[in-house]
């Protein structure tokens, strides 16, 4: 069934089709529509779930963890201040192996108050052990939520589905909403190997000495390492049933490209327009849009970039005291690779500053003008 819906509602639809059983969420602009639609779905019983109207995001994640431990499929959504308020519990979810799926609307961190998009909120959670998906269309959002549940529940690792504020969350697009029966066939009930129940009592998450802690964390990483292959496999299954494949990256004209732009989120779609414009001018450009940030798709990135002469990573985020975050990760992925591709890093669009095709033309121009990248960050669009 095709419907014109906003990005936020694509999250709600994904949660409904996945038959989420417990939702605990707190409103925050620009996520509010996610939870409002989910409330309606629960009230009208189109979604058989308990919606706990918690009093903060920290409590939202705490309630999700309790529900997940009981063996229920859990969903929540938040943004920026809410996500960072949950930070302690994000570690808890991954360490406790609770496969919560969460929608996060990328919104710039305060101060000052901003409701517009950049990626610092979710990227600063990169070490918490969550799988991170970055979407660029509402269709992708809905499809990703369903697949995220499948991957998370198999690995027992939580995941977040990330959308840009307003550019995606509030933009209306045509979305093909899959048939419930087909989704049920694709995504069976959550059936964890261990759950909290009096019929098989255990104490979960107690005092753990150096004698034991290391192995738990080793196991978490080992299971994370299985995620790229699993995401591709579940993606192929999804493609068979619903006709759309997500995968770890989107490769647009990279095969014969001399200059590859690396992007994520909606800026990644804008980059394709930029690539088209560059091609018209005779520049063999391509765009690599990274869809899965954690676990980082090292192999895929090396593969796609293999034939390029230069790589330009455009970050809509920054790790203060270092550089853009995708830039750091791409550089590290290419370090020691078979051939030496210079990686140029650019930062743009913080706090929702608009990213246009011209941004990418400027990026390309600056990249082509230099033979080696500089240590310093190249800022695009800052009023200097």
């Amino acid at each position, binding site marked *: 069934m095709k419907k014109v819906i906003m990005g936020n509602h694509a999250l709600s639809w994904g949660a409904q089709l996945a038959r989420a059983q417990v939702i605990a969420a707190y409103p925050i602009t620009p996520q509010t529509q996610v939870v409002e639609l989910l409330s309606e779905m629960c009230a009208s019983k189109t979604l058989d779930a308990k919606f706990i109207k918690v009093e903060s995001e920290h409590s939202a994640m705490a309630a999700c963890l309790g529900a997940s431990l009981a063996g229920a499929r859990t969903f929540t959504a938040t943004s920026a201040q809410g996500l960072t308020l949950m930070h302690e519990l994000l570690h808890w979810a991954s*360490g*406790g*192996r609770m496969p919560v799926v969460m929608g996060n609307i990328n919104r710039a961190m305060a101060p000052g108050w901003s409701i517009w998009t950049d990626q610092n909120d979710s990227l600063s959670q990169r070490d918490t052990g969550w799988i991170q998906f970055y979407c660029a269309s509402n269709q992708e959002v809905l499809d990703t939520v369903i697949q995220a549940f499948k991957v998370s529940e198999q690995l*027992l690792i939580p995941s977040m589905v990330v959308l840009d504020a307003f550019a995606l969350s509030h933009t209306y697009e045509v979305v093909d909403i899959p048939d419930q029966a087909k989704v049920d066939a694709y995504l069976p009930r959550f059936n964890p*190997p*261990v759950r909290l129940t009096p019929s098989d009592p*255990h*104490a*979960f*998450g*107690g005092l*753990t000495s150096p004698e*034991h*802690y290391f*192995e*738990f964390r*080793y*196991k978490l990483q080992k299971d994370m390492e299985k995620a790229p292959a699993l995401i591709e496999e579940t993606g192929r299954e999804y493609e068979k049933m619903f006709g759309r494949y997500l995968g770890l990256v989107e490769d647009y004209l990279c095969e014969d490209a001399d200059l590859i732009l690396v992007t994520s989120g909606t800026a990644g779609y804008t980059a394709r327009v930029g690539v088209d414009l560059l091609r018209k001018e005779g520049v063999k450009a391509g765009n690599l849009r990274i869809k899965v940030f954690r676990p980082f798709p090292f192999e895929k990135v090396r593969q796609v970039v293999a034939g390029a002469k230069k790589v330009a990573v455009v970050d809509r985020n920054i790790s203060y005291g270092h550089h853009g975050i995708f830039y750091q990760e791409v550089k590290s992925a290419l370090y020691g690779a078979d051939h030496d591709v210079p990686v140029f890093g650019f930062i743009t669009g913080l706090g929702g500053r608009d990213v246009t095709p011209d941004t990418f033309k400027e990026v390309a121009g600056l990249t082509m003008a230099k033979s080696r990248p500089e240590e310093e960050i190249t800022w695009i669009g800052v009023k200097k």
Partner: protein
Amino acid sequence: MKNKKKPEKIIFQSEKDVPLMPMSVGSMLFNKTGAWRNIRPEIDLANCIQCGICWKFCPDVAIYIENEFPVIDYDYCKGCGICAEECPSKCIAMVEELK
């Protein structure tokens, strides 16, 4: 009512034996807290009035009932002295623990 479970310490040889997330797989009965004591309670059963108060107030479940009389489980008794203090017939004495 004596603790019947056989206590065992759990050793994990490899990460393959370790459960997926930090959780309990065994009981604390392997931990013989009796080693904590400096003084031990001794019940004079001749004067015991079988009121059950010592059994009731033990925080370590270290007093059990056998043949209608209280018995101290010295494997676990920490020597807190509550039983002696609360006994209405004062038939429990706290004596120096002989190591």
